[in-house]
C-alpha cells in the first residue's frame, strides 16, 4: 500500500530538547528555597500563580472559544472560600484550598447553564456581569466584612507552619506546583482526543456537532474544570495577600485584564504563549511599576504595539518564523525517506 510511505508524528527534536530543559528548569525551581532570596521567591510564586491563571484562561479562550472576562469571579470566590472555611469552619488552609476548588466547580454549573446561551462578545460581557454579581453579593455578606473586607487572622496563617521560612517555602511550592500541574494538565488534555474536539469546536461549531462532538458538554467540562482550578488559585492568592475585600477579590483588572494581556501578548491558542506572556508581563512590571502612571501607559502601549505587529502574540511570531513547537500538539504527515521504502 502506498500509504505505508506516510507516517504521522506529533513530536520534533526541538520539543524533545525542550522537554529535557523544562524538566531541568522545574527541578532547579523546586530547589529555589535553597538558592533564592525571600523576595525572589515571592515574586516567582506570584509569577507561577499568574502563569496558572493564564494557562487556564488560554484553555478556555484559545481552545474552547470561551472568551471570559469574568474569571475574577472564581479567583475571588476561591479567596472568599478560603477565608470563610478557615475562619468559620476552622479548616486547615490546605484543606480549605481543596474545598474551594470543589465549591468553585459546584457554583460554576448553574453559571454555565446561564451564560452558555451566549456567544462571542455576548458571552464575554455575560461573564463579566456574573463576576460583578459575585462581587456585589459578597459585598452584602457582613460576616465576611461586607464591602470593607476582612483580614486573615494571623493564627490561621501560622497554622500552615510556625516558622516563617517554612511557611514561605511552602507557599512557594504550592504556587510552583499549581503552575506545573495546570500547564501539564492543559497540555495533556489538548493532546487527547477531547483536546482535538475542543479545537474543532473553536473553529466551527456547526461542523463539530455534525461530527459527533457534543459541544455543550465539552465546553461545560472545560468551564467547570477551569472554574475549579481558578478557585483554588484564588484561595492560594489570597492566602498570600492575607486580606480580602470585594473590590480586590473581584478585580477585573488584576485577575482578568492582566491575564488576558499575558495570554494574548504571549500567543493565544498555544501552550507556550502564557509562559512567554508571563515573563514579559513581569519583566515590565518589575522594571517599571514604580513609575506609576508611566508604567500603565507603557503597558497599554505594549498591548497595542504587539497586537499591531504580531496579532498572534510573541510566540505566534516565533512559531511562524521558525516553525517551532515546544509543546507539540500538531499532527504532521511526513513521507518516509526512500531508503526505508519496501
Amino acid at each position: 500500500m502506498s500509504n505505508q510511505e506516510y507516517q504521522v508524528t506529533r513530536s520534533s527534536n526541538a520539543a524533545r530538547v525542550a522537554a529535557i530543559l523544562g524538566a531541568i528548569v522545574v527541578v532547579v525551581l523546586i530547589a529555589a528555597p535553597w538558592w533564592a532570596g525571600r523576595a525572589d521567591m515571592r515574586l516567582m510564586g506570584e509569577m507561577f500563580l499568574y502563569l496558572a491563571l493564564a494557562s487556564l484562561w488560554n484553555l478556555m479562550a484559545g481552545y474552547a472559544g470561551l472568551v471570559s472576562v469574568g474569571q475574577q469571579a472564581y479567583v475571588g470566590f476561591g479567596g472568599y472560600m478560603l477565608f470563610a472555611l478557615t475562619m468559620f469552619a476552622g479548616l486547615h488552609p490546605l484543606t480549605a484550598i481543596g474545598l474551594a476548588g470543589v465549591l468553585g466547580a459546584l457554583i460554576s454549573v448553574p453559571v454555565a447553564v446561564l451564560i452558555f446561551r451566549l456567544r462571542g462578545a455576548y458571552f464575554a460581557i455575560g461573564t463579566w456581569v456574573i463576576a460583578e454579581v459575585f462581587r456585589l453579593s459578597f459585598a452584602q455578606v457582613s460576616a465576611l466584612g461586607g464591602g470593607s473586607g476582612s483580614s486573615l487572622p494571623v493564627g490561621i496563617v501560622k497554622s500552615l507552619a510556625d516558622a516563617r521560612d517554612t511557611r514561605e517555602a511552602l507557599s512557594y511550592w504550592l504556587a510552583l506546583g499549581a503552575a506545573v500541574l495546570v500547564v501539564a494538565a492543559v497540555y495533556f488534555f489538548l493532546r487527547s482526543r477531547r483536546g482535538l474536539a475542543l479545537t474543532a469546536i473553536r473553529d466551527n461549531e456547526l461542523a463539530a456537532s455534525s461530527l459527533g462532538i457534543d459541544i455543550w458538554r465539552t465546553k461545560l467540562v472545560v468551564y467547570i474544570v477551569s472554574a475549579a482550578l481558578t478557585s483554588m488559585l484564588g484561595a492560594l492568592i489570597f492566602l498570600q495577600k492575607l486580606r480580602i475585600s470585594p473590590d480586590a477579590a473581584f478585580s477585573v483588572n488584576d485577575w482578568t485584564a492582566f491575564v488576558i494581556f499575558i495570554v494574548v501578548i504571549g500567543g493565544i491558542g498555544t501552550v507556550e504563549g502564557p509562559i512567554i506572556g508571563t515573563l514579559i508581563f513581569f519583566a515590565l512590571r518589575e522594571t517599571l511599576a514604580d513609575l506609576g502612571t508611566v508604567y500603565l501607559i507603557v503597558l497599554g502601549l505594549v498591548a497595542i504595539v504587539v497586537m499591531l505587529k504580531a496579532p498572534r502574540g510573541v510566540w505566534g511570531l516565533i512559531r511562524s518564523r521558525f516553525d517551532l513547537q515546544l509543546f507539540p500538539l500538531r499532527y504532521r504527515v511526513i513521507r518516509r525517506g526512500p531508503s526505508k521504502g519496501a
Partner: protein
Amino acid sequence: MEWLNAIVQGALLGGLYALFAAGLSLIFGVMRLVNIAHGDLIVLAAYLGLTVTAATGLHPLLALVVVVPAMGAIGYALQRGLLNQTLGDDLLPPLLVTFGLSVIIQNGLLEVYSADPQKLDAGALETASLSVGGLSLGILPVLTFAVAVAVIWALQWTFYHTSLGRAFRAVSDNQDIAQLMGLNRRHVFGLAMALALVVTGIAGILLGIRTSFDPSIGGGRLIFAFEAVIIGGLGNLWGTLAGGVILGVAQTVGAKIDPGWQLLAGHLAFLFILAVRPNGLFPRIAA
C-alpha cells in the same frame, strides 16, 4: 407614589445609560469591535468639555459645539490610524488594543488633569426641576433622556434609511466584497467610529454636568453600557434605549428595596433577560 418616583427616576437614568450605550452599539454592530475604552472616551469628552469651558467660559452645553466635532475627529483618526489594523474575525486583538487604549487614556488624563474630581458647571440647569403630578423631575435628567431619544432616533435612521447606513452594514458583513461595491472600508469604519464618538461626546458632557468625574470613573460605566446594548439586541438602537431604561429602573427599584441592591438589581435584570432571550429583546441582526 414612592414607587412611581423610583420608576420614573430610573427611567430617566436609563436615558443616560442608553446614551453611553448608543455609540458602543454602533461600533459593535458595524465593526464587531468590543471597545473597552468606551468608558474612558466618555470621560475624555468630559475633560475636553472642561477645558473648553475653562478656556472660553462657555456654558457646557455650548461647549458641545467644540467637543462634538473634536470627538468625531478623534474617532476617525483613531479608527484609521489604529483600530482598522486590528479588525478581523478574531475578537481578541481589538479587545486588547482598546484595553491598552483605555489604560493610556486613563493615565494620560491623570498626568494632565490630576486625580482631582472635576465637574462641569452648568449653573441653574443642574438644579432646576419641574413638577409633574407630584413628582419632582430634574430638568437635566429629562433633557438627557430627550437627547438620548433624539440621538438614538438619528442613529437608527442613519443606519437603516441612508446609504451611509447601508454602507455600514455592508462593510460589517463582508469587507472584501464591500470594497468591490466601491466602498473604502477604512473610510467607512472611520466614519462609524467618528459617529460613535460624536455620541460619546454628547454623553460625556451630560455626564460631566450630572456628576463629578475623575480619570478613573470610565470603567464603572462601561459595563452598564454593554448591558444596555445586549439587552436591546444587536443592531437595534431602540432596543438599546429600552435596555438602558430597564437597567435604570431595575437599579432604582432595587435600591428602593435596599440601597445595597441597586447595582446588583441592574445586573440581575440583565441576566434574567439573557436567560429568557439570549439574543436580547429586539435583535435585528443574528449575533
